[in-house]
């Protein structure tokens, strides 16, 4: 086993990996940028090394700095988390060149799967069903028109190097093709430094279902069941669940075996996820493979009873998978809510700032993977994911009721969060009926939310407002009467404060 693991990440995932290291008795070192000195992962680590400015390119994405910390700390393995360097083949190669184990797949496997067009070519060879389209970038407008006419509109233009919805365009008819192609190309070039764009048949309102796989370094590959990830905004996942309501044991086996074939075709090792689009007739098509631990891995952990981070570390240390495919059972149901610092009333615009009150839910069937604490300021420099609230129950209905209850217990004060979005999703009739597809959230958010004014609660609020003022005044000798919007940490003269209070009498 490893002597020490360096975690090259931040936020909730760094804390998640730290917890696994603690559980396994492996000392853990972390890196942090100037914006993260006060972050939870630094507080919880055994060793913490500063790596420079807040900008990720000068800290969390800087390969030489991270390898230098690995050497100085004596770490013999690096866990990359997700995002940042987790899917960077150059980084995986640099680790291996430096004699440090990268906890993830090899650089070769990443390269084979990293480009969407190259992955399509490999999958065609492995007889994996793909969304009809081209397996290489289109050269010209004429070629694009020919291909699009052959596979039939609507079509989707996609950047070969893409991700996160960038460089993607939906084209409904031949007339829109030329300008969409130009737009996709320039966006791809700007975002990824590569303007290769290919064409796929657009599957209208598909489900997005992915399959977790695990492969050890001795040729054993298993699948751990699917995750339903159809609830998305701007191509970003918002809520995930396992199992999917439409996947029966036979479909799970077929999808799982396909995923294993994908992984084997790329000589894949460690944890990975094969993403599929599923159409209305439950046909599934290979979309891409994510060569990292996913944000939503906890739902799979809850329904399989396995710890994916432990297994990642064991596999990287050269151990064999401790079970076979037949041993894996799906039990119960799990749903994850991604809690973000963003403002639901302002088009989900990021809302960083100081968390001045944090009440966290607990109780039966609730898991909270967080990277925050009360008094911490959410930095403006990174993805504003605060925590993942995961519910588990015997079935989908019980899981939904547990999560709804937990959301009512959850309070994050001082910043705006999307907690209310999840209350709304979990109340939604179509969600209860599991009628999900990737257009679900946009449709739900287009409907105006019905808010009935509660006059009785408003009266209680009025009484509470007065009591807050009165109790603060009598208990702490200071007034919280409003109108004064000075930040509370601004030092103020006691004389001035006393004078003000006199004036209030």
């Amino acid at each position: 086993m490893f002597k020490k693991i360096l975690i090259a990440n931040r936020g909730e995932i760094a804390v998640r990996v730290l917890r696994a290291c603690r559980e396994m008795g492996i000392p853990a070192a972390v890196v942090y940028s100037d914006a993260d000195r006060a972050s939870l992962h630094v507080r919880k680590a055994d060793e913490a090394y500063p790596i420079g400015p807040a900008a990720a390119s000068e800290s969390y994405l800087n390969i030489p700095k991270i390898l230098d910390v690995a050497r100085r700390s004596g770490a013999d393995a690096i866990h990359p988390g997700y995002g940042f360097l987790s899917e960077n083949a150059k980084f995986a190669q640099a680790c291996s060149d430096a004699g440090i184990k990268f906890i993830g797949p090899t650089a070769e496997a990443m390269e084979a799967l990293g480009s969407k067009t190259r992955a399509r070519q490999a999958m065609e060879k492995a007889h994996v069903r793909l969304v009809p389209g081209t397996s290489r970038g289109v050269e010209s407008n004429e070629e694009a028109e020919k291909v699009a006419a052959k596979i039939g509109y609507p079509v989707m233009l996609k950047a070969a190097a893409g991700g996160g919805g960038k460089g993607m365009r939906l084209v409904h008819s031949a007339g829109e093709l030329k300008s969409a192609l130009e737009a996709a190309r320039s966006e791809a070039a700007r975002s990824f430094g590569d303007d290769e764009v290919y064409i796929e048949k657009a599957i209208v309102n598909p489900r997005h279902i992915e399959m977790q796989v695990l492969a050890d370094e001795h040729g054993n590959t298993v699948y751990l069941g699917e995750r339903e990830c159809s609830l998305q905004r701007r191509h970003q996942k918002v809520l995930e669940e396992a199992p999917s309501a439409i996947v029966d044991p036979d479909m799970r086996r077929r999808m799982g075996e396909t995923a294993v074939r994908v992984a084997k075709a790329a000589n894949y090792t460690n944890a990975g996820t094969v993403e599929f689009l599923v159409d209305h007739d439950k046909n599934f098509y290979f979309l891409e493979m994510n060569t990292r631990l996913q944000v939503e891995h906890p739902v799979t952990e809850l329904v399989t009873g396995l710890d994916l981070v432990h297994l990642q570390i064991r596999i990287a240390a050269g151990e064999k998978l401790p079970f076979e495919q037949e041993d894996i059972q799906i039990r119960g149901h799990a749903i994850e809510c991604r809690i973000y610092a963003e403002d639901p009333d302002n088009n989900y615009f990021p809302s960083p700032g100081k968390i001045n009150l944090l009440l966290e839910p607990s109780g039966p069937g609730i898991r909270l993977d967080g990277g925050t604490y009360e008094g911490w300021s959410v930095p403006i420099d990174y993805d504003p994911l605060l925590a993942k609230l995961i519910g588990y129950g015997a079935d989908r209905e019980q899981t939904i009721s547990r999560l709804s209850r937990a959301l009512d217990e959850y309070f994050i004060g001082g910043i705006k969060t999307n907690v209310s979005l999840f209350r709304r999703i979990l109340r939604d009739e179509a969600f209860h009926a599991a009628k999900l597809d990737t257009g679900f959230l946009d449709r739900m958010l287009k409907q105006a939310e019905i808010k009935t004014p509660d006059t009785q609660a408003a009266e209680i609020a009025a009484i509470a407002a007065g009591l807050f003022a009165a109790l603060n005044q009598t208990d702490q000798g200071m007034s919280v009467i409003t109108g004064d919007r000075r930040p509370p940490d601004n030092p103020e003269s006691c004389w001035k404060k006393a004078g003000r209070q006199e004036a209030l009498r």
Partner: protein
Amino acid sequence: MLYDVTINGKNHRLELNRAGERWLCRLDARELEIDALLVRPHVLSLRIGNLAYEIKSERSENGLQLWIGSACFSAEVSDPRSLRSRSRAKEDQGPRKITASMPGKVVRLLVQAGDSIEAGMGIIVVEAMKMQNEIKSPKKGKVEKILVSPGTAVNAGDVMAIID
């Protein structure tokens, strides 16, 4: 203690008097006896009769907010006898500060000092978390002063401009 309380725009007159462990409360015309306990800063446990409530308070750039379960109420509290409350009525006519609602960086100025502007017009564009946000004028008037320039880093609450 006497307070003027505004909840979601509706005004109430609230009188609170301590009676031993409890509070005698007169809200508008109603009288209630209340058991109130501040269980920790910003969290109030209330019993009205035997009905129990937990209320959280939160102060943001939009003022005071109170949460009862998942319902949120914006609140204003003032002491009608205080000097500040009496003078506050005039405030809306005076100059207004444009403050940054979150930490970020000024990208662009959309107006110059001296410009006449309408309520709701964009004044300054601030970038935070890689997204740009247009800060709008709360009132019709004239740009009195601009205190930032493109590139300035701002913190939540920093005054960026003054509109009169």
